[in-house]
């Protein structure tokens, strides 16, 4: 075996270890979701009898379908608002000179570090008074707030990458600031905005603490919270299969996203990190 072949064999092993490490728990929950109740506790890594019964089961109950609707609706709305507000602020941060910019950056950094549990108690109380408790807006509001720093941070890094000269060129070409933004900057920033949208969506999709704290019924409970309240079909049955199936349903779309937009997500996650 020559050195080259040995090297590539070495890399194959290393890469294989990395891939297995990353995918093991995902495969496990997938395997569980396809097991029928009788083999659920056999500990086998590959289901002996494949079944879709767990999936049929959860989609039969409004407990899950409603939670899925809540998850999607709340995450999409919160993402849209956060990205819209974030785009405006990030453009200003990256491109304009104005007093108070540092304050904005400091403030969003502070919120990025903020422990959500510290906000749960006051928000719980305030939302009960305002009638927002256990409603969509009751979750959308904290989600978009906590994802705003992420959005501003990522987007301003994307905006900085757009050459400053392009905007000057547009202005010399006769564009107003608004036209320069709309015709030149916005089309170039679109991929960055999209990437930020994915990151923010993953952030909202992932939340658990707010979801269990600020909801009490299926009216606004999202899937992660609903899973935690799943009960078996009978009193003596663990809801393992249902939980596994529900977990797969909210995992697969994200994994597909990640597969499709791998490069962009890496760019988004690390944007600005190198400037530190």
């Amino acid at each position: 075996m020559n050195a080259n072949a040995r090297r590539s064999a070495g890399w194959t092993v290393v890469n294989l270890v990395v891939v297995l490490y990353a995918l093991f728990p995902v495969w496990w929950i997938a395997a569980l979701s396809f097991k029928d109740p009788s083999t659920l506790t056999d500990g086998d890594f590959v289901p002996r009898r494949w079944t879709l019964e767990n999936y049929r089961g959860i989609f039969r109950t409004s407990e899950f379908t409603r939670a899925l609707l809540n998850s999607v609706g709340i995450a999409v709305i919160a993402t849209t608002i956060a990205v819209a507000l974030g785009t405006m602020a990030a453009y200003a941060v990256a491109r304009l000179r104005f007093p108070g910019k540092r304050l904005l950056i400091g403030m969003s950094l502070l919120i990025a570090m903020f422990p959500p549990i510290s906000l749960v108690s006051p928000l719980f109380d305030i939302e009960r008074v305002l009638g927002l408790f256990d409603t969509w807006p009751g979750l959308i509001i904290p989600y978009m707030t906590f994802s705003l720093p992420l959005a501003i941070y990522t987007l301003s890094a994307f905006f900085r990458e757009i050459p400053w000269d392009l905007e000057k060129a547009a202005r010399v070409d006769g564009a107003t600031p608004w036209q320069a933004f709309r015709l030149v900057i916005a089309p170039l920033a679109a991929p960055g905005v999209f990437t930020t949208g994915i990151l923010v969506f993953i952030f909202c999709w992932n939340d658990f603490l707010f979801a269990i704290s600020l909801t009490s019924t299926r009216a606004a409970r999202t899937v992660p919270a609903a899973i935690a309240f799943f009960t078996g079909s009978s009193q003596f049955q663990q809801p393992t299969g249902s939980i596994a199936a529900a977990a797969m349903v909210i995992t697969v779309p994200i994994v597909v996203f990640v597969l499709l937009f791998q490069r962009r997500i890496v760019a988004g996650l690390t944007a600005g990190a190198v400037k530190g």
Partner: protein
Amino acid sequence: MAELVLDGLTKHYPDGAVAVRGVDLTIGDGEFVILVGPSGCGKSTTLNMIAGLEDITAGTLRIGGRVVNDLAPKDRDIAMVFQSYALYPHMTVRQNMGFALRLARTDKAEIARKVEEAARILDLTDHLERRPAQLSGGQRQRVAMGRAIVRAPKAFLMDEPLSNLDAQLRVRMRTQIARLQRRLGTTTVYVTHDQVEAMTLGDRVVVMRGGVVQQVGAPQELYDHPVNLFVAGFIGSPAMNVLDATLENGALRTALGELPLPDGLRQQLERADAPRRVVVGIRPEHFEDAALLEHPRGGRTVTVGVEVVESVGSDVFAHFTVGTVGTVGAVGTVGAVGTVEGGREMVARIGTATRAAEGRPLELWVDTGRLHVFDPSTGATLTRPGR
């Protein structure tokens, strides 16, 4: 097309830094003017102020007789070529070139006609539907030029438009730009740090340093009569040799030996009330291998120890070092001239027939009639021809 008048144009930044200090300049209709200087000299800031991309702190700017200080770039009717070209990456060449016309709500057919004409002039017709990323560096540069010319603006502003090209292409594009400008006759302000571009392109050259205009003039005038040590050192390649000297009995005593002054120069120095300590400047081509001259007229022959001989085909450069006498410091602060430990590096440009060799002494003839003499304290020239 229009006349550009800069009257005391000044730029302060909020942090107190002064980028441009009172630039007065009148650029005639159709004139090609070069702003040149080392980086940070204020040339790009000046250009940006003309474009309206930077605010003017003080002074006035007129384009075609109209004060435009407070007009947005879009209302000034100027076109700009950027160093990075600043092509819109999401638009085709055609869309890039027609963008300004589109913003001005020009008729579609009219845009197409103008873009195609510009493309023809710049040999871009085959690339109109491509995007900038699919073009070579030279083609991108031409698109940037095309974007400027389709508009037929009052003036072209060019910010180091050739500095991203390789050496060969740069020379070719330089000629093209000169030809294009003559053909269109559009007033052009061109910023560069490359003195060769400055010398070859412009009708007039403005040398700037530290935000202050040092000298304005035709290229040859700058070369023959630099007003100070900075201009003398900046214009010309290789740079002018400078030496400390003392003025005694109508001759300059230098580390190179005593250089007698011809009458003309002596009168100029007297008129300028020259101090005793001066700095003398000698262009490399004002040396010659004494062995190649049959009848040297005037001048003086000195002996130097040649260290390096470089032949570039048409010429030979002989490098040598001379010791220093007197103060080097004064010159060091005024001129951009290299000094070495215990001496001053000098270079002579001599005929190819020379037999100069490294490590051997060489008899050099100095054309003393072409010497430049400067005041070491101010750097200003003392040898301005009387008028």
